[in-house]
């Protein structure tokens, strides 16, 4: 950060307030004699360890320092002596704004306020030192003294893009359950749904197609958003479907549009708008069946990938993690997964060469296809009895031999 320094002499009130000082002056050592007025300097300093910046008041006389070291200096009393006020462009409410959270200290003749949180770009921080708040001080007539530090706004040149959208196919089932939006850098949270639209073939936005969840379903890095189609617009016989119809309709064309107005974690908009055009195919109400998948075992002693071909595209996130391979000893084989061919091909490259012998491909039954059907359990269950009878095992296996 740039240093912002002010030198104060009480009698003359020579307070140098330097907002966004790009030409910082060094702190002036305070000259102190008993006959002279109180003279001190105030400075915004960056933490040496790159941590939170703090405000320092130097050059105070020893009587004042001793007063500030008294045990009766409660947080409330400190706040009246030295406080920082964060000011941004919002309309100020009629009642006064509270001071910024932080900790006060006196050490080595320096009085310091360290904000609890880092200073933010685009915010004006007004430090206020008011020694007259201390009863019995000779500086009673003086102050308060303020020193403003303005943190310049961030460079908001757009760099972040939508890096991928899954499902990646151009034909999607009418009862599609979700999209995954992948971004090239972390994104900001809050109010995201206003940036996402689903347009019909006439370019008209589909009314409320997505399940808008306040929590927003991000991955921990904030680089992937899960976007559910409102299940009320998918399930047969439920109210939204009866009233406003399905979000997607078979045989028609739609475009998913991600507006460039969406801000990344740094606050910059996306580099460009993103569009995914697709055609809607028939509904898929058939649970995935691993018995219908192709499986090509590689040769023993090689690190050739094991390739599994799904008979239809599978959910990108779940297919990436819900299949695993166990060795002849029953242990999990370590390796890397790649999904390709519009999420119809799963390739697994082991870290070590394949051992000869019987292996298993183990699939969790909670894996989903594009319509949210699980193994042994369609997305829609029409009768309670059928629910009771559904598979209770959590995984199914397919044996294969490595030779």
């Amino acid at each position, binding site marked *: 950060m740039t240093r912002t320094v002010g030198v104060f002499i009480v009698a003359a009130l020579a307070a140098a307030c330097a907002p966004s000082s790009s030409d910082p002056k060094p702190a002036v050592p305070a000259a102190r004699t008993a006959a002279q007025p109180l003279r001190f300097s105030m400075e915004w300093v960056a933490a040496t360890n790159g941590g939170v910046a703090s405000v320092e008041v130097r050059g105070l006389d020893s009587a004042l320092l001793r007063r500030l070291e008294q045990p009766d200096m409660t947080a409330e009393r400190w706040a009246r002596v030295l406080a920082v006020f964060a000011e941004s462009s919002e309309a100020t409410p009629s009642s006064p704004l509270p001071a910024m959270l932080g900790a006060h200290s006196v050490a080595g003749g320096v009085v310091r306020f360290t904000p609890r949180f880092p200073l*933010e770009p685009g915010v004006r921080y007004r430090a206020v030192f008011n020694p007259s708040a201390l009863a019995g001080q000779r500086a009673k007539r003086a102050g308060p003294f303020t020193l403003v530090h303005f943190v310049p706004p961030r460079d908001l040149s757009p760099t972040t893009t939508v890096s991928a959208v899954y499902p990646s196919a151009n034909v999607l089932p009418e009862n599609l359950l979700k999209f995954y939006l992948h971004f090239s850098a972390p994104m900001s949270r809050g109010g995201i749904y206003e940036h996402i639209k689903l347009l019909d073939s006439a370019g008209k936005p589909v009314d409320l197609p997505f399940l808008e969840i306040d929590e927003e379903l991000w991955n*921990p890095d904030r680089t992937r958003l899960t976007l559910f189609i409102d299940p009320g617009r998918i399930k047969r*016989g439920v*109210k*939204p479907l009866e009233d406003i119809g399905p979000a997607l309709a078979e045989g028609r064309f739609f475009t998913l549009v991600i507006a460039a107005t969406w*801000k990344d*974690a740094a606050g910059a908009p996306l580099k460009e708008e993103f569009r995914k055009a697709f055609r809607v195919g028939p509904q898929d109400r058939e649970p995935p069946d691993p018995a219908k998948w192709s499986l090509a075992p590689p040769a023993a002693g090689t690190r050739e990938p094991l390739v599994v071909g799904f008979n239809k595209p599978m*959910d990108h996130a*779940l297919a990436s993690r819900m299949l695993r391979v166990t060795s002849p000893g029953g242990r999990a084989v370590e390796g890397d997964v790649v999904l390709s061919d519009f999420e119809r091909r799963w390739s697994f490259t082991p870290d070590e060469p394949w051992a000869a012998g019987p292996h298993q491909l183990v699939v969790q039954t909670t894996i989903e296809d594009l319509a949210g059907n699980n193994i042994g359990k369609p997305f829609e269950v029409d009768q309670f009895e059928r629910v009771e009878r559904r598979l209770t095992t959590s995984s199914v296996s397919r044996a294969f031999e490595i030779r």
Partner: protein
Amino acid sequence: MKPIRSLLTLLACGAVAGAAFAASPTAGMNEGKADLKSVGPIAFGPEGVLFAADTKSAAIFAIATGDTAPASGSPQLKVEAINVKLGALLGTAADQLTIDDLAVNPVSRNAWLAVTRGRGTEAAPVLVRVKSGGVLEAVSLDKVKFSKADLPNPPAEAQPGKKGNPRLESITDIVFLDGNVLVAGLSNEEFASTLRSIPFPFQAVNKGAAVEIYHGAHGAFETRSPVRTFVPFKVGNEPSLLAAYQCTPLVQFPIKELQPGAKIRGKTIAELGNRNRPLDMIVYNKDGKEWLLLSNSSRGIMKISTDNIDKAESITTRVADKQGQTYQTIEAWTGIEQLDKLDGGHALVIRREGSAQNLEVLALP
């Protein structure tokens, strides 16, 4: 954020599932830093214990707030542009924070806010107490008594690759009920509605059991729509939960069925029409009757009658709109983003007016 009075009714009734409540809710807590990585829904339990959902850590924290001094008189909790004041307190711009939840401590009647400072990856969770007179106080979690219940997050044990775990389970609501913390969640991968019941005080081995709730809707059984918000309520003599789903039905099921691994048959008691996104729900008593108040993203606030709720038939036929329990929309309550019950006659709300969010006390309708 749920009315404690209803909980007490249920406790008195005794016909509830789960372990009996231990002598002291803070027994077994450790003192130290409650290291929340994020904060979502919050709810009060007994003796000032605050439950805070941390989606990023996949955990529920129980924090002994010490906020146990009973309220005296009517609290003055109106705070104009509370988002701007929170921004000042936390040293940032108001548009860089989110108010994720509001809960009234039923003992002290102080308002507690779950706030997230920042919208990027460095976002920090903060708990803020609003005392009578509208004073905002950020609560330090550096040295508090707390305990933590980790929620299972499957991929860690099942992922063959070496990438980080991208799965998170967002917690949409939590309620404390008779020694159990009930947690409704939604994963960012599998589409499944889970309701988890975790015994409190938290035990190392018992992470609680998830139940699946099925409810009739027009001849089909809804199995997966996520629960948005829920509230304990006595239906006839049956302690129950009323759950509002993401897509509009209001469903009732008996609490005694909340057993580990259970598949529960819920009853759809109201269809509140489409385009709804329920936000918060409270129960209150007025003119000798019990009412539900449901805030909603597009239909404003709904005041729902509970008359004859015990005799209600499950809605299983196709309906035009708004079937089941009758309700009226309270037109004057606009822009409600957070709702909790303050006392017998008042609700506390966060209400949006332009860019400002105001904390307001409103007389219950």
